[in-house]
C-alpha cells in the first residue's frame, strides 16, 4: 500500500474539510478547539458526507472504503486538525461494538443517532475497585423476567452527565471465572435509579469524568449487547478498535508538539538551545516509527498475516506524547509558566498512558501475548 501518497480520494476529503471549516479556523484554532457547536456540526456533516466511518456503508456515515484508504483519510483529518469528535466514546468505541454485536433492532434504533452525534454515549467500565483489573468489576445484574435488575457503581465514566446511553458492564454470573461472568448491557441513562455525579477535573477539559450510581435500575433484557456472559469479548473488541485509532490521534498531537519546539524563540536564541536537538531528533524518530508501524500493521492485516507490531502503537504513542510536551516546556523556558495551552497539553498527555489500558497493562500484554512470557 502507499505510504504518505496523496490520492484523489484524500484530495476530495481535504477539499470537503476546507469547505466546511470557517476561513479563520487555523488562525483561531486555540479557540475553535473548544467550540462544541462547530465540533457537533462537523460530526454531522462528516456523517452525511461519508467521512465519519470511511469503511462503513453510506447509511452508517461511510463510503465502504478499504482499510488502507480509510487510514489515509484519518491521517489527513489528523494532519489538518479536523475538529475533534465531541463525544469520541460514541463513534470510537460504542459504535463498533454495536455494529459487531448488536441485534438488528439495536443497530436500527441506536447507530444513526450515535453517529450523527445526536445521542452521546458513555462507557460504563471502571469501578472504584476495578480499574486495570476490569474483569474484577462488582456491579451486579440479575435477570428478573424480561429485565435485568442492576446495582452498583461506575466511576471515571467520561461525559455520562451529557450522555443518553451507556455500555454498562455488569456481573451476570458470580460463580463463573471472572472474565466469563460479565455481560454488556445498553443502559438508558434516563432510567429511574441512575444517579450521575460529575467530578471536577484537574485540568480544563470537556471530557469530564462522572460517577454513576446504579440503585436497583431496571434494564430490559433485550438491551443485552452480545451474548450473556460474553461482555469481556465485547469490551476487548471495542477497545481494540479504539487502539487502532489512538495512534493517529497521538501522532498528530506529537507533530503539533514538535512544531511548537521548532517555533519556540528560545530554541533559536538561547545559549542552551542546542540541548534540545538530540531529544527533538529522538522524538522525530518516535513519530515516524508510529506512522511506519501503523502502515506495517495494516499491510500485514491486508495480506492476512498476523500484525504483532500493532501492539506497540498505544505504548509508544502515549509515552512519546508526554515526552514531546515536556520538551516543548523546556524549549519555552519560563514562558512555559504562563502558557495555559501548554499546561492543558501537558495535563492531557498524562491521561494517554492511562486510558484504554495503562502502559503497565500494555507491557503485560506485549510480554505475555507476543513474547510468550508466563503470567505473574
Amino acid at each position: 500500500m502507499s505510504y504518505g501518497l496523496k490520492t484523489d480520494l484524500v484530495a476530495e476529503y481535504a477539499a470537503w474539510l476546507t469547505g466546511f471549516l470557517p476561513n479563520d479556523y487555523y488562525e483561531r484554532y486555540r479557540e475553535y478547539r473548544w467550540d462544541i457547536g462547530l465540533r457537533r456540526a462537523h460530526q454531522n456533516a462528516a456523517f452525511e458526507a461519508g467521512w465519519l466511518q470511511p469503511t462503513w456503508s453510506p447509511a452508517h456515515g461511510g463510503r465502504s472504503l478499504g482499510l488502507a484508504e480509510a487510514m489515509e483519510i484519518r491521517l489527513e483529518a489528523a494532519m489538518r486538525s479536523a475538529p475533534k469528535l465531541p463525544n469520541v466514546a460514541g463513534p470510537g468505541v460504542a459504535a463498533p461494538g454495536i455494529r459487531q454485536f448488536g441485534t438488528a433492532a439495536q443497530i436500527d434504533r441506536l447507530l444513526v443517532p450515535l453517529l450523527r452525534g445526536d445521542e452521546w454515549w458513555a462507557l460504563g467500565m471502571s469501578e472504584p475497585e476495578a480499574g486495570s483489573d476490569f474483569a474484577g468489576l462488582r456491579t451486579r445484574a440479575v435477570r428478573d423476567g424480561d429485565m435485568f435488575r442492576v446495582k452498583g457503581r461506575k466511576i471515571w465514566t467520561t461525559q455520562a452527565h451529557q450522555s443518553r446511553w451507556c455500555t454498562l458492564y455488569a456481573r451476570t454470573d458470580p460463580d463463573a471465572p471472572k472474565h466469563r461472568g460479565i455481560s454488556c448491557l445498553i443502559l438508558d441513562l434516563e432510567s429511574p435509579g441512575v444517579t450521575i455525579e460529575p467530578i471536577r477535573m484537574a485540568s480544563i477539559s470537556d471530557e469530564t469524568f462522572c460517577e454513576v450510581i446504579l440503585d436497583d435500575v431496571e434494564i430490559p433484557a433485550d438491551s443485552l449487547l452480545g451474548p450473556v456472559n460474553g461482555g469481556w469479548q465485547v469490551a476487548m473488541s471495542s477497545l481494540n478498535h479504539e487502539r487502532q485509532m489512538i495512534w493517529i490521534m497521538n501522532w498528530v498531537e506529537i507533530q503539533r508538539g514538535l512544531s511548537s519546539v521548532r517555533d519556540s524563540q528560545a530554541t533559536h536564541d538561547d545559549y542552551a538551545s542546542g540541548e534540545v536537538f538530540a531529544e527533538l531528533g529522538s522524538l522525530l524518530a518516535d513519530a515516524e516509527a508510529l506512522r511506519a508501524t501503523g502502515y506495517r500493521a495494516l499491510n500485514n492485516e491486508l495480506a492476512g498475516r498476523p500484525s504483532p507490531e500493532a501492539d506497540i502503537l498505544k505504548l509508544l504513542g502515549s509515552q512519546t506524547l508526554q515526552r514531546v510536551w515536556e520538551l516543548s516546556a523546556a524549549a519555552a523556558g519560563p514562558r512555559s509558566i504562563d502558557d495555559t495551552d501548554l499546561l492543558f497539553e501537558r495535563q492531557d498527555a498524562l491521561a494517554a498512558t492511562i486510558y484504554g489500558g495503562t502502559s503497565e497493562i500494555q507491557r503485560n500484554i506485549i510480554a505475555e501475548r507476543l513474547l510468550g512470557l508466563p503470567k505473574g
Partner: protein
Amino acid sequence: MDVGLNSGQLALRDSVRDVLRAECPPAIARQAMTDPDRWRTVWKTVVDLGWSELAVPTADRDSSFGRMDLTVVLEECGAALAPVPLLSSVGLAAGLLRLAGPAVDDVLAEIGSGVVAALAVHPPGHRLPAVPMTLQDGRVYGRAVAVPGLPRAELVVTLASSSEGPVAAVVRVGDGVTVHEAECTDPAQPVADVEVDAQPIAIVPVDLDSALATPLVAAAADLVGVAGAALERAIEYAKTRQQFGKPIGAFQGIKHALADNYVALQRARGLTYAAAARLDDPATSVAAGWNAAALAKAAAAEAAVGCGRTAVQVHGALAQTWEHDMHLYLRHAWQGASTLGDSRALYHAVGRRFAGSAA
C-alpha cells in the same frame, strides 16, 4: 511504495535465515574472534548464494535488488552474527557508490562478485561521518579511523574534498594504502585505521547526504537483526530459568524490560523499512532520505545496545563468561552503534535540521 516486506522479500528472508541457521550459529562468530581466516568459508557460501550481488543496482527495477532486499539480508546476517563483510563491503562501501553512476560500475561489479571493499568516512575526532580525504593532482590522501572490515578488504571506498566539491574515491589496498590494525570491540568484525596517499581507481562527484543515506540504512538493518536476536535469546532464557519457584519471566521487573525492548526493536525496524522504502522511491527528496536513514540508524543502534544490555542482565552471571553468546551480541551492537554516527549525534543532527527548517 511499501513500508512492509512483500511476499518475495519474506521468502528471501526465510531462505537467508535457513542458510544461516544451518551454517552460521553464533559459535562461528566466537571462532572468528581468534581465527583471522574463519570468516572465509562463510563468505564463500554468502558469495556462492549471490548475496554479494546486492551491491549492484541495475536499471531494470524488476530484476534488480532494491534497498529493501539488501535490508532483509543484512538484518538476517546481523541476527546470526555472521562474521562476514557483507555489511561493510556490500552495505556500506557499495552503498555509498550506489548512486554514483557508470563511473563505478566496474567497482560495484567487483564487489558484487565477492571482492571485499571497506568504507572510510570517519575523519579522526568526528562523531558523524564526514569527508576524511583530499583529492589533489590526481591523488587521494588523508587518514580515516575505525574503517569497518578493512583488515579483510582489497578496496577502500572513501570521500574526498576536491576543488570541485566532494567526490567518492576508490583505492586499491596496496602501495600508498597503509592499514593500521589494532584490537577492537568486536574482533569477529575487525576494524582498522587507514592512511592513504594513492592514485584512485575511480573518482566520481557525490552529494554527501544522498551518498551516505544507503550506508546508514544498511548499518541500521544489521543492528535491527542484532537487537531481535538478542531479545529472542533473553526471552528464551526468561521462560526457562526458575527462581523463587517460577520462571523469572513471570516477574514484571523482567517482563516490562523485555516489553520495552520489543517496542524499541519494532520502532527501529519500522524506521529501517520505511527508510529503505523511501530511498527506493525516486520521489523522495535528498533531505527526507537522509533524515529517514539517520533516524533508522540511531534507533537501530539504541535497540541493539538496549536489547543486548537487557539480555546480559536477564542472563545474570552467565552472561559474563566467554563461553556464553551474550557478549558476542553486545560487542557487535556496541561497535555498530559507533559506526557512521552514534545515536545521540544522529538524533542531534536531525533535530537541528528540523529546528532550522521553515515552519
